[in-house]
């Protein structure tokens, strides 16, 4: 049960982006389209699960003094593998994400989870934590990119990342004349981020108050 709670926390309550404020640079930069966000989310999930598993497996061998360089080497290796895979199988995604795939190495979520969780817990727990945090990140970037893409272009467009000719969803939600191009620019990213973070904050506060009340009743 505890394991499942850990997994669930990463989704909303301890959402890495909106609640722990980790890995925000890439969040702001890649959320211009839902496609990018899904691709980035998938890459982060994969790196996060694998790095958590490996780091958890070697946590008893690694000397404490040099653990950060060791973690970085592991993460960098994994990111390089993922980057090469994306380059080979989803070249369109690779061009649109560009430098932000290699930059997953320095994404605070991954090192943060390695430090805070994987180096202290077992392999299964760490894998589950990686999945939960990765899904939380994906959820955050997809929510942001959905808002930004729809407001800025009015069109929701999702294509198959492995074959860009295959369009899965392409619907016009807002007519061209009523779009707000501002949301395509950095300003829009910050505004969207702030509003979503505020909503999550309000939800957390509400949940805490409810929990406190339940405690009182007991």
């Amino acid at each position, binding site marked *: 049960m505890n394991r499942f709670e850990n997994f669930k926390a990463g989704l909303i309550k301890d959402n890495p982006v909106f609640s722990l404020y980790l890995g925000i640079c890439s969040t702001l*930069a890649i959320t211009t389209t839902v496609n990018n966000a899904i691709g980035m989310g998938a890459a982060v999930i994969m790196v996060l699960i694998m790095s958590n598993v490996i780091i958890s497996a070697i946590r008893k061998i690694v000397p404490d003094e040099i653990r950060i360089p060791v973690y970085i080497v592991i993460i960098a290796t994994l990111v390089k593998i993922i980057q090469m895979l994306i380059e080979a199988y989803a070249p369109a995604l690779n061009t649109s994400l560009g430098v932000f795939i290699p930059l997953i190495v320095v994404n605070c979520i991954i090192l943060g989870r390695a430090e805070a969780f994987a180096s202290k817990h077992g392999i299964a727990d760490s894998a589950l934590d990686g999945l939960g945090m990765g899904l939380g990140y994906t959820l955050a970037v997809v929510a942001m990119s959905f808002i930004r893409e729809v407001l800025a272009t009015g069109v929701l467009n999702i294509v198959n990342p492995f074959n860009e000719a295959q369009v899965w969803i392409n619907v016009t939600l807002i007519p061209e*004349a009523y779009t707000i191009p501002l949301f395509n620019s950095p300003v829009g990213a910050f505004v969207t981020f702030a509003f979503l973070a505020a909503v999550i904050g309000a939800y957390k506060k509400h949940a805490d108050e409810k929990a406190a009340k339940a405690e009182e009743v007991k």
Partner: protein
Amino acid sequence: MKFNFHVSPNIKGKQSTQNIMRDLTIGLLVIFVCACIYYASAYGMRYCMQAVLLLACSLITTLVCEVIYAKATKQPIKPFLAHSFGWVTSIILTMMCQITITPYALIIATVFAIVIGRLLFGGFGQNIFNPAAVGGAVIFAAFAGATTDLVTSATPTTTIASEFHWLPATPEVLDSFLEQFGGFSSLALGTYAGAIGETFTIAILLVGIVLALRHVIDWRIPVVYLGAIAIMTAVIALIAGLEPYHGVPAFLWYPALHLVTGGVVFGGVFMLTDPVTNPTSAAGRVLFALGAAILTVLLRMKANLPEGCLYSILLMNMFTPMIESSLDGNQLKIAKKVYIAFACFCVLALGVSLFAAKTIEPVTTLRTSSSATAYVVPEVMNEEVFL
């Protein structure tokens, strides 16, 4: 014997915030009526109605936003609205727009100005940025092309920025610019197509004098702001070697040109003087206005933007807390500090003028294409620049 103890301040002025805001609103509406009369006489009733429609859109949006905010924060609606003065923001914002703007763009800009620029900071008196300037920046950034095809001529600021680099050097070049907008007198009176309220330089100055006499706005800010712009541009004219225009030496006509084009007078009188977002001490206000003038000239001459007034206001608003805290305390004791800061700003202003005059090529020959092209925001601005 009886002692009365009151919490300071013990001397109260007769003016209340309500009175100040009422006077400001009347002043703004005078300019707006000028605009309506001009558009009605020059283009027909339809344009006048369009201006009124835009103002109505902005006002209603403000009202809706504030009612929702008051409901959400569980405040009584009527007192909240009466003490929020949202209408001043929406009138200023409407007057900063061109009449060609779509109502939709104005509504979105108003939402940004009221909700993000003002309410999220805690409402009237808490905002750090001038809310109208926030809305104006949104229009600049997002709706540069969102215009209906009512009046399609370019404004003087876009023309002078894109074709003449703000430096028409010879009388012929200046004439070719002025004839597009009906000469100096037309620019001063505001009888040309531009932002709805910003063009009426003389009317705005008159309203500003009345408001300053009634102590609604602080006279120091517009005087220092416009004076500094005039002096800096005069220095630029002298260094760049502009020629006299029909007997008027360059250091007189060039500052005048800067003052009558674009929104500096409107911004100086109505936006920089916003009591919420500028420093409280007199010395602080002088430094604030001087900084804004330097930024305005720098943005006008060297930046990719056609107009610098708006961004200079937003940037100086960020410096307000710094000015405020550094000039805190006994004003007589810190007088020396104020003089040093003032001298530093003056040197900076001179440096900016030198830099601008030395690095911009004055336009001495007429270009063949006389048609004014609308200013296009360069691609670079829209690119993601995060890492």
